[in-house]
C-alpha cells in the first residue's frame, strides 16, 4: 500500500463507469486513455478492470503479468482495494487488474456488490474508472448504476447502437427494480414489464410509468420518474470516421428520451484511429500512443468536459 495515498484524504473519489453492451466497441481503450488523461491532468486515478470475462487493461497499460488482481481482494487475500492497486508507467495512474471469472462464477448477491462498490469509494484517489465488461448482466448494470458518471461507449454500427440502447434500457429497469425491492407488487410489475410477452401490453418504460399512473399510482410513478431523471448519461461514439458517424450517439439519446424518458444525455465522440487498432493488436501500451493521434486528442477533450 502506498502511504502517500493515505494522507490528506478529503472526499471519496468520483466513480466513472464505462459500459456499452457490446464487446469490441472500444470500452477498454476509451477507459484506459480517459484514465491516462485524468492522471496527466494531475488527478489521482485508479482504473479498475471489471471486464470479468476478458480482462485486458494490464496489457493496454503495458503490464505483462499483474502480480495482484481484483481476485485477490475478493478472495480476501488482501483486505483493501488499495492493496491490489498496481502502479503503472504513467504518473498518478494505478490499475486494479481484472479477475477473470470470479464474479461471474460466484454471481455475488446484490449486497456483496454494494460492499465492493463501497470499497471503490474508499480508494484513495480522485477518480476511479470502472471498465465494465460486455453484456447487460446484473453485475455490469449494478456497477454502472452505482457510478457517479455513467458512460456508454458505442460505435457507428447498427448492432452496437442497438446494444447500447438495450444496455441503457436494462439499466433503467434494473434501477427501478432495485428501487422497488421493498414493494413486491411494484417489483413484480416492473419484472412483468421487462418481459416482451407481458399480458399488460407494457412495452416500454414510458408505458410502464403511464400504466402505474393510470392505475392510481401517481405518487409511485413520480418517485420512479425522479429516479430515472437522476440517470444522467454520457454517450461516447467511438471510432467515428466522419461527422455523420458521430450521430450514432444521438440515435441512442433520442430513443432513450422517447421510450425511457431519460432527459439528460451528453454526447461526445472519438475519431477512428488506425494507430490505436494497430497498437492494441501489437500489444503496445496505449500510454506510448503518439499524442498527435486524433483519438487521443478527442479523449483529452472528453476528459476535460467531464471533469
Amino acid at each position, binding site marked *: 500500500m502506498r502511504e502517500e495515498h493515505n494522507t490528506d484524504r478529503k472526499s471519496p473519489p468520483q466513480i466513472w463507469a464505462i459500459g456499452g453492451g457490446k464487446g469490441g466497441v472500444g470500452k477498454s481503450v476509451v477507459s484506459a486513455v480517459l484514465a491516462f488523461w485524468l492522471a496527466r491532468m494531475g488527478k489521482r486515478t485508479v482504473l479498475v478492470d471489471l471486464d470479468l470475462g476478458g480482462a485486458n487493461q494490464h496489457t493496454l497499460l503495458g503490464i505483462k503479468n499483474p502480480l495482484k488482481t481484483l481476485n485477490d481482494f475478493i478472495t480476501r487475500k488482501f483486505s483493501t482495494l488499495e492493496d491490489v492497486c498496481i502502479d503503472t508507467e504513467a504518473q498518478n495512474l494505478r490499475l486494479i487488474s481484472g479477475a477473470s471469472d470470479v464474479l461471474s462464477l460466484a454471481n455475488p448477491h446484490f449486497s456483496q456488490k454494494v460492499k465492493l462498490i463501497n470499497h471503490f469509494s474508499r480508494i484513495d484517489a480522485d477518480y476511479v474508472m470502472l471498465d465494465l465488461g460486455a453484456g447487460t448482466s446484473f453485475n455490469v448494470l449494478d456497477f454502472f448504476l452505482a457510478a457517479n458518471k455513467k458512460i456508454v461507449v458505442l460505435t457507428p454500427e*447498427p448492432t452496437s447502437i442497438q446494444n447500447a*440502447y438495450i444496455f441503457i434500457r436494462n439499466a433503467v429497469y434494473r434501477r427501478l427494480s432495485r428501487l422497488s425491492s421493498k414493494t413486491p407488487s411494484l417489483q413484480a410489475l416492473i419484472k412483468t414489464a421487462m418481459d416482451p410477452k407481458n399480458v399488460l401490453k407494457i412495452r416500454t418504460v414510458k408505458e410502464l410509468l403511464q400504466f402505474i399512473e393510470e392505475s392510481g399510482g401517481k405518487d409511485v410513478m413520480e418517485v420512479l420518474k425522479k429516479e430515472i431523471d437522476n440517470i444522467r448519461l454520457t454517450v461516447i461514439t467511438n471510432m467515428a470516421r466522419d461527422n455523420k458517424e458521430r450521430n450514432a450517439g444521438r440515435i441512442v439519446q433520442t430513443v432513450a428520451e422517447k421510450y425511457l424518458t431519460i432527459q439528460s444525455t451528453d454526447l461526445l465522440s472519438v475519431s477512428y484511429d488506425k494507430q490505436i487498432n494497430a497498437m492494441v493488436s501489437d500489444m503496445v501500451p496505449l500510454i506510448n500512443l503518439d499524442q498527435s493521434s486524433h483519438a487521443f486528442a478527442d479523449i483529452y477533450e472528453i476528459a476535460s468536459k467531464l471533469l
Partner: protein
Amino acid sequence: MDEPIDRQESLVTRIIDGSITIDSLKEFENLLKIFPDNPRLHRVFADFLAQKKPFDAVNAYEISANLFTKAGQTLQAIVSKIFEWRLAKPSHQEEQEFYADLHKGNSKEVPVQRFFAGLVFEQLIAFMNELTPRYIPEQTMMKKFGDRETHMSFVVSGALEQTTHHPLKKYEKVREKTKKDLIENDFFGEIYPFEEEKVSQTDIKTITRVELAEISKSMLTKICRQNPDVELLVDHLYLARLKSDEKEFAKIVRKTVRHQVPTQINLKVFQDHGDKAPLELSGFTNDISLGGASVVLGATYQVGHSFNLIGRNVKIQMCLPIESIVINMLGTIVWGKDVPLEGKTTTIVGIQFKEMTDIDRGLLKEYCYGSEGEQNLIWSLWGSLLEK
C-alpha cells in the same frame, strides 16, 4: 400492441406485407391453425378467399375485424368490416353491434383513432359508406408536387415516403425538401379547410405495398355539412398532425418496416426415417422473434419443393452477432416458399421455435430487444442520420 400479434408477426410478416403470396387454401388453413389470433393474416386470408370463395370470405373478414377491434386497431377493423359488408349487406343490428364493439376496444393513442372514436353511430356508418380501401404496390408515386388535392387518405398498412417542398426563401435558388415516413394510422391529403382549393406541396411515394382507405373531398364535405361535429373532428385531426410535425425529429422517427441485422442460422432438418442423416442447411434471417424466424436458405441448396420441408422438426443453431453468442434450439418448419433470389431460386422457411433453455431464451429476448417502436425508431434514425 397485442402480444400474440407481436410474436407471430415475425413468422408471417412476409405473407402479410405481400412479399410472399400464398396461393393454396390448405397452406392458409395450416397457417391459421398455428396463428389463429393474427388479424392481419386473417385479413390476407379473407382477401384470398374473396377471389375464390366470396361466401367464406365474409366470415374471414369478420374474424379479422373482430381481432383488429380487440387489438385496438380501429382503422384496420373498419376496413375489414367494409369488405365484409360489401360481400354481405349488414342488418342495422349488426352495424350497431360493430359500433359498440369498436367503442369497447377503442384505442385513442393516435389522432386517427381519436377521430374514429369521436364519431357517433350514424356518422361512423356514413363515413364507412364513403371510405374506399385500395392496395398500392411498393415504389409507386402516389402524388406529385403541384397535383390537385382531391382526397384524404388513411394509411391502413405499409409505409410511404412524403417529401415536402418548402416555399423558396429569400436568396434561395432551390426549394428545401424534408422527408417523412407515413405509416399505418397516418393520413395525407390537404383537403381541409374545404373552402380552399389546394395543390400538393409534397411528393408521396410508397415504400412498401400500402393499403389506403380514401375518402373524396366532396364526400367528406357533404358528411361534414350534414354533421358539423364531424367537421370538428376533422379539424382536430389536421391540428394534431400539425402539432406532431412541429416536433423535432417527427420527420424521421417512424418507419413501419421491421428491420433486423441479418443473423446466420444453421439448420439440421430431421428426415421422416430415423436412419437417414439429417439435412444440413444454412441461411440467414432478418426477421426473428422469441416465437420463431423466417429463414432464407442459401441459393445453392437443392432442397426440392419447399413444401417437402413443412412439418419437419429442425435443430436450429443461431449465431447472434451480440458477443459471438450461439443459441441452440429445436423447432418446426411451419411454412415454406420457393422464391427468386439474386437470379436463382431459393427457399424461405418459417420456423416456429419449440424448445430452448432458459438461458438461451434470455439471450434471444435480449437480442429481440424492446418494443417494435424502439426498434423502428433506432432504424429510422439510423437511416436518416448515418446511412450513407
